[in-house]
């Protein structure tokens, strides 16, 4: 059978199956289980109305349960077994991991990432949003700054590989050093600081996201409050920090936490730039190192990441809900 035909059949069966499910289950509920007939019709209609949402939600709840909840539980169980998966070792993977230099470096680096990248991207995004707000060519500048959002992390890493290249003919940093008469360096091999050079890439990508959201939030501030502040004698800095920023604080927190969650998932940049060498490992790339080699260890790392993300996630969702009200 040709793949195209196969695809078509899949779509027809899938979509048709969904329609059939909703139609048939609804029909069965109304006609067979709680029929609106005889003495019971009023009560039966009420009961059918109570059941119906659950009936319609069932496919989504089932799929989410199967593909989200089960893997979480399954991963946790797997992380309690040894490398081959045939021997229960309790928290052995975790204790061994924490005693390892490599993991501790990755954890520390990751904390650094989670602090610096959201701060940097949010701050720059806010700055750009404010500076371009009233400019005629502001929208053009914003589209340029937004563009990196459309580049994949690996693609972005490749671009920055050129920027950081250890060759004055290719890398801009070394080209600058060359004109000043300094010898070439490899920024990726400068201990500790190389982490920040990697973070710059993600900040470069995420500033556009922060800018778009914060720019919309800034526009939402009532103009009169700003005029009132002008009459009250506030200078532009005071207006920005005491009137504008507090009014969009909710949005800033949402942007900040959203980027934090993203940071805790990114492995591609480190993977593509240094492969985790020169002490630049972070948790997701550390996990990748063990995946398929030692699944017990890899799932343990995954769990540590999940536990770190969880509180940020909860805060993010709460704040976003508050914003919507």
């Amino acid at each position, binding site marked *: 059978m040709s793949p195209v035909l196969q695809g078509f059949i899949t779509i027809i069966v899938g979509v048709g199956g969904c329609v059939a499910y909703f139609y048939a289950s609804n029909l069965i509920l109304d006609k067979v289980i709680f029929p609106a007939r005889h003495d019971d019709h009023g009560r039966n209609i009420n009961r059918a109305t109570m059941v119906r949402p659950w009936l319609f939600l069932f496919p989504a709840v089932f799929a989410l349960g199967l593909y989200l909840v089960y893997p979480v539980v399954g991963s946790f169980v797997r992380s309690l077994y040894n490398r081959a998966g045939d021997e229960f070792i309790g928290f052995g993977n975790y204790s061994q991991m924490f005693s390892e230099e490599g993991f501790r470096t990755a954890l520390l680096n990751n904390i650094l990432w989670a602090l610096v990248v959201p701060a940097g991207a949010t701050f720059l995004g806010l700055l750009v949003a404010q500076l371009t707000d009233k400019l005629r060519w502001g929208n053009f500048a914003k589209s340029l700054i937004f563009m990196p959002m459309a580049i994949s992390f690996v693609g972005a890493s490749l671009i920055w590989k050129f920027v950081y290249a250890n060759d004055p003919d290719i890398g801009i940093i070394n080209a600058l050093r060359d004109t000043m008469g300094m010898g070439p360096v490899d920024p990726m091999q400068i201990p500790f600081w190389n982490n920040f050079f990697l973070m710059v890439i993600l900040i470069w990508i995420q500033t556009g996201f922060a800018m778009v959201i914060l720019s919309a939030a800034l526009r939402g501030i009532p103009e009169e409050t700003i005029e009132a502040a*002008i*009459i009250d004698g506030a200078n532009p800095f005071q207006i920005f920090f*005491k009137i504008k920023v507090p009014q969009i604080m909710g949005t800033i927190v949402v942007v900040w936490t959203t980027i934090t969650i993203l940071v805790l998932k990114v492995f591609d940049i480190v993977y593509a730039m240094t492969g985790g060498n020169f002490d630049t490992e972070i948790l997701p790339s550390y996990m990748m190192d063990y995946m398929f080699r030692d699944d017990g260890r890899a799932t343990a790392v995954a769990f540590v990441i999940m536990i770190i993300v969880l509180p940020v996630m909860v805060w993010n969702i709460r704040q976003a809900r508050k914003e919507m009200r």
Partner: protein
Amino acid sequence: MANLKLKDVAKTYGGTIDVLKNINLDIKQGELIVFVGPSGCGKSTLLRMIAGLEKITGGTLEIDGQLVNNVPPAQRGIAMVFQSYALYPHMTVRDNMSFALKIAKKSPEEIEKAVAKAAKILQLDDYLDRLPKALSGGQRQRVAIGRSIVRDPKVYLFDEPLSNLDAALRVATRIEIAQLKETMPDSTMIYVTHDQVEAMTLATRIVVLANKGIAQVGTPLELYERPNGEFVAQFIGSPAMNLLPGEVIATGPQTTVKMANGGVAVSDYPTLDSDMGRKVNVGVRPEDFLEVATGADFIFNGKVNITEALGEVTLLYFEKEPGASDAVIGKLPGIHSGLRGTEVKLGAVPAKVHIFADGESLLYR
């Protein structure tokens, strides 16, 4: 506590679109000046120019004899109350009121004293630690006023401060503003509104803006009794003044006009001999009409289309005459039942009959 002097003030957008021009106005200390006018006449723009939120593109503005065209808003000694209150939503009432003083680096004791005083005047003592969202519309407006009071400005500017309030609250807050003005007899206030009642009740003098300029300036009753043109005559007073076409047939200290529809109007407006035979519009306010007996002289006669009995007065809407832009309206005191569909003849005492030629009042020339 200041005089304001506007000389040939103009506002042009983009160099070509005139919004206001030739605004000349002297505002004395302690006056409450109300800007009224149809929407889009530039009254809010003029207020914002005085505040410094809009650039003055022509003419000069002086506050207390000092040219302030290019002085930033905060240094003009003005305070403004916005239609939307414009409270800082993230600050408590106390912080809202003290913001300007904190910016001005006043001492905490001084700020505390000023806020306490304003809160007392406006009965906001119990709400000082609340956020604006926990206040009602009227309370928010009081906070906005309090924010102006603490700054102790030379000039208070109000931009339609009551239009976001419901009808009952509007009346209550209007009276509060009037009382506030009583307690601060030296402060100069400028108040923009499109509500006639606010203008009539609050103003020391009303400035009617129309056609990019000032139509007339005067005390509320001056404008009501002696409008300088058809625009002001119809703008002040509700329902609007009736304008009826006619021709001057006798001149002198009193003028007689033969009405186009057959009646005769006598007015206390003086006319010159040269006015003889001039086509004019006779203006009579609905409330100045009197029912006249059969056979007596009348100014207007027509068939009543609709009546509205309000108890204290009865409104008569006459059938629209062919060619006239508005139907004539009469407002007779008391209850008059059974007038609908009948012919009614109306007159007025000479003191209440206005005469306009080419849109201008014959009283001012």
